[in-house]
């Protein structure tokens, strides 16, 4: 059994990373040419890691299931990326970013990792600008910032509502340069099917070419998993259709511990569910909460009139609106962290104030912002500030400039104009803080096997702050992993290329092929989606925004039963030797059906509420989450032992030397 040693360097917090870098082993440039590294996933974490490792001189093989690395779902991140630059002079600092992140994560993340993240955050912005990432700028030519939930400073850099796209294209461009040089060999439309271990170390992967169905063996001295999160376990989420947990789950089954699987982020501002045949949900960036005010009607009769289509939200008088976030959390208002905002929306909707047919929607209203910006613009231009039509026109221009693409996206989906009528929003699954357990070096419990970005558990605790996912992905990929991996690889300079004609590769390949054959020849009656949707419903209803012992116990039983039914009755058409999207999907859903059970087990075990994990049994009189530091100040790292129900819990105690644990308050 591997021990849970987080390998946190000694010394004062602010010197740990520098000292660590000074003390770890390096691989000399000539020897790097003799070392191969596999990177699975090409989003912000995987793309930036692949590029940087190749720049350093390693031979990189990168894999993505999409038709190009540029499609990875990091591309859909909208709002921005945090960095402790303090360009606005509003008192930001590395410490403050560190503090906000630990507090925002409800004191369930590792101090040393988060401090390092804050420390390298500024380098990320410098690096991206040097690559030609077109961040938003002010008229003076310098970079602009906006603010995000859970903080009191403006530290978020952005590129309209397409920050993830621009950062990913930056990492993709860095990859392209290395692909052009031959230092990265790119495998598009390939899926990682399993990791191969030799003498206990990760030494390669089995991959499937998704176009031909061919099974391939790839050897390497180290394997990096950057395959993102597992939000699609809920079927409906803001993740891409192909986003999956399979790479992470496969390495878990080969010895990598899975940490805090129940820590899921339900994002407060998504477009509400419209129908049973819907395939995915769309996020409306948190940045909208800078200018949008969230409300529901105060009176039940107004709610009913709205649902019946007899009343429009714009007809409801100001005094009849309940701006419930501003009411409950005056200090942070609409900019409370995501978990708090989501629960507050659920509370109002559960109380019967939801504003659409399903009763699961609240308003996000821009009318105040449009008026405010319009007046300001009229003033600047020397025009009449009291001309309402003019003010509205100018205000809408400002809002369009800030959020134009988001408004357009909303209008296309909902068929309503959000400049004229408030948006309707509701929380949806968005991000998973839990993931593969890694130490300070981002290595899993399997030597030579690393996990970075959303795939690992490391930096966000029980709740991630807005604009921090992009920061973590790029920090891991550009600035952390490329250093720490050298320490491990320095022992491999004389190993030579890893052969793939060995019994370890034979066995791993056979296992992969057997499972594919089993799926193809199952001859059941129902398509994969049928099972995925049912799993999603169990997860959403029983492991969603509020959880309790009874529901979690029944979720475990239901998922187990569903898994058995899946293997009996799933129908996968076609053969395994061709482009077969259903076969790929079937493998992913089979893994979700195992991970789901571990998820519920973890949620059951953690009887406290913290961050995105809300146990109904553990709340204050006002309905706020009640943490239990005495019993749960740890990372829950699960070891695979066969069935998910047999998983063994290992605890990594979280030590806070630089931050005092407090009850999180945004009031």
């Amino acid at each position, binding site marked *: 059994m591997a021990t849970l040693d987080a390998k946190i360097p000694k010394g004062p917090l602010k010197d740990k990373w520098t000292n660590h870098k000074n003390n770890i082993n390096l691989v000399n440039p000539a020897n790097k040419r003799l070392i191969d590294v596999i990177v699975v996933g090409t989003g912000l974490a995987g793309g930036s890691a692949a*590029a940087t490792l190749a720049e350093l001189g390693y031979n990189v093989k990168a894999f993505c299931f999409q038709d190009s690395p540029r499609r990875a779902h990091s591309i859909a991140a909208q709002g921005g990326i945090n960095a402790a630059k303090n360009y606005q002079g509003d008192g930001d600092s590395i410490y403050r970013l560190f503090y906000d992140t630990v507090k925002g994560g409800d004191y369930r993340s590792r101090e040393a990792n988060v401090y390092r993240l804050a420390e390298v955050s500024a380098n990320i912005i410098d690096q991206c600008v040097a690559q030609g990432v077109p961040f938003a700028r002010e008229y003076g030519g310098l970079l602009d910032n906006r603010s995000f939930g859970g903080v009191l400073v403006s530290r978020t850099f952005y590129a309209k509502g397409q920050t993830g796209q621009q950062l990913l294209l930056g990492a993709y461009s860095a990859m392209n340069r290395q692909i052009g040089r031959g230092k990265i060999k790119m495998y598009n439309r390939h899926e990682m099917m399993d990791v191969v271990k030799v003498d206990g170390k990760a030494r390669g992967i089995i991959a499937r070419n998704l176009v031909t169905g061919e099974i391939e063996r790839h050897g390497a001295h180290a394997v990096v998993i950057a395959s993102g999160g597992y939000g699609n376990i809920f079927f409906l989420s803001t993740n891409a259709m192909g986003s999956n947990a399979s790479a992470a789950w496969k390495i878990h089954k080969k010895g990598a511990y899975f940490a805090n699987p129940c820590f899921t982020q339900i994002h407060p501002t998504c477009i509400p569910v419209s129908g049973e045949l819907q395939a995915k949900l769309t996020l409306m960036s948190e940045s909208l909460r800078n200018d949008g005010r969230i409300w529901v009607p105060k009176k039940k009769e107004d709610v009913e009139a709205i649902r019946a289509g007899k009343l429009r939200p714009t007809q409801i008088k100001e005094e009849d609106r309940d701006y419930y976030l501003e009411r409950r959390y005056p200090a942070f208002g609409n900019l409370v962290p995501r978990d708090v905002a989501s629960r507050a929306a659920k509370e109002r909707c559960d109380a019967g104030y939801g504003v659409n047919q399903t009763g699961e929607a609240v308003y996000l209203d821009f009318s105040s912002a449009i008026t405010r910006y319009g007046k300001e613009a009229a003033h600047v231009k020397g025009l009449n500030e009291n001309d309402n039509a003019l003010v509205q026109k100018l205000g809408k221009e400002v809002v369009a400039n800030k959020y134009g693409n988001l408004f357009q996206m909303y209008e296309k989906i909902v068929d309503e104009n959000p400049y004229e009528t408030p948006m309707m929003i509701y929380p949806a699954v968005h991000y998973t803080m839990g993931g593969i357990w890694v130490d300070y070096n981002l290595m899993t419990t399997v030597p030579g096997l690393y996990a970075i970005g959303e795939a690992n558990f490391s930096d966000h605790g029980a709740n991630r702050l807005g604009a921090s996912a992009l920061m973590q992905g790029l920090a891991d990929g550009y600035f952390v992993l490329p250093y720490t991996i050298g320490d491990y690889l320095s022992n491999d300079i004389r190993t030579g290329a890893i052969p793939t004609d060995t019994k370890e590769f034979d066995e791993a390949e056979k296992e992969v092929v057997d499972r594919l054959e089993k799926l193809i020849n199952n001859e059941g009656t129902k398509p994969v989606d049928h099972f995925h949707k049912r799993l999603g419903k169990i997860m959403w209803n029983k492991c969603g925004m509020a959880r309790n012992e009874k529901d979690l116990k029944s979720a475990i039983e239901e998922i187990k039963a569903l898994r058995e039914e899946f293997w009996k009755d799933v129908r996968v058409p076609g053969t395994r030797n061709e482009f077969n999207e259903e076969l790929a999907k079937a493998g992913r859903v089979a893994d979700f059906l195992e991970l789901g059970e571990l998820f519920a087990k973890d949620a059951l075990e953690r009887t406290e509420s913290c961050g995105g994990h809300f146990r109904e049994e553990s709340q204050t009189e006002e309905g706020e989450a009640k943490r239990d530091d005495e019993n749960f100040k740890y990372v829950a790292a699960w070891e695979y032992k066969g069935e998910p129900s047999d998983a063994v819990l290992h605890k990594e105690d979280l030590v806070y030397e630089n931050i005092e644990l407090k009850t999180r308050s945004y009031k």
Partner: protein
Amino acid sequence: MNLTLKIWRQKDANSKGKMVDYQISDISGDMSFLEMLDVLNNQLIEKGEEPIAFDHDCREGICGMCSLYINGEAHGPDRGVTTCQLHMRKFKDGDTIYIEPFRAKAFPVVKDLAVDRSAFDRIQHAGGYVSVNTSGNTQDANAIPVQKENADMAFDAATCIGCGACVATCKNSSAMLFVGAKVSQYALLPQGEVEAKERVQNMVKQMDAEGFGNCSNTGACEVECPKGISLENIARMNREYLKATTSTKD
């Protein structure tokens, strides 16, 4: 609504394809076009038939993976959207809808409606980057101010999602809008200036090698581009190319 679908079926790159008819009923206007295809596929699977292969991923109009040619238009009849953002409310009961892959010599069919757009990647390998290594000490991000106007134009060019609608739409299968957008993004920023000359030449050379046609200024690409990438980017690329090939010294 009830619809007749005429869909391109092709087993793989080497097989011959043909249009096949399908009927589908009870489609709601709030469904997206791809959700409609999901319903059809699940029906086909339950009937023991092979589902239709098509590319898609983010389903929110940003990854650029979806690529259907619907009723003779890339990404279908709506403007400023990708196929995944197209909603069925744009169609009416009883309609017949033709669904084909993005067609171009440089985009061979993988299967049914999925095509191989790796030619776009190879153009980017040839020069779609700034040659800067990752280090913790590039100069401060605010060391070089960039005029807001230029930064905004660079951003607009950079919002290209690489879907290939421009190529599928163009009668010459030209990739000039795609390449022009990338060249423009860097041409408008000081960071891209250093390598501007080589970049445009290398990217254009690769574009030609991939078998994309030339631009004859019909402007169809701009109309069909889901992100509204402007034709000005093609003009800027032509200027950059001219500058690079006619100046005698670096």
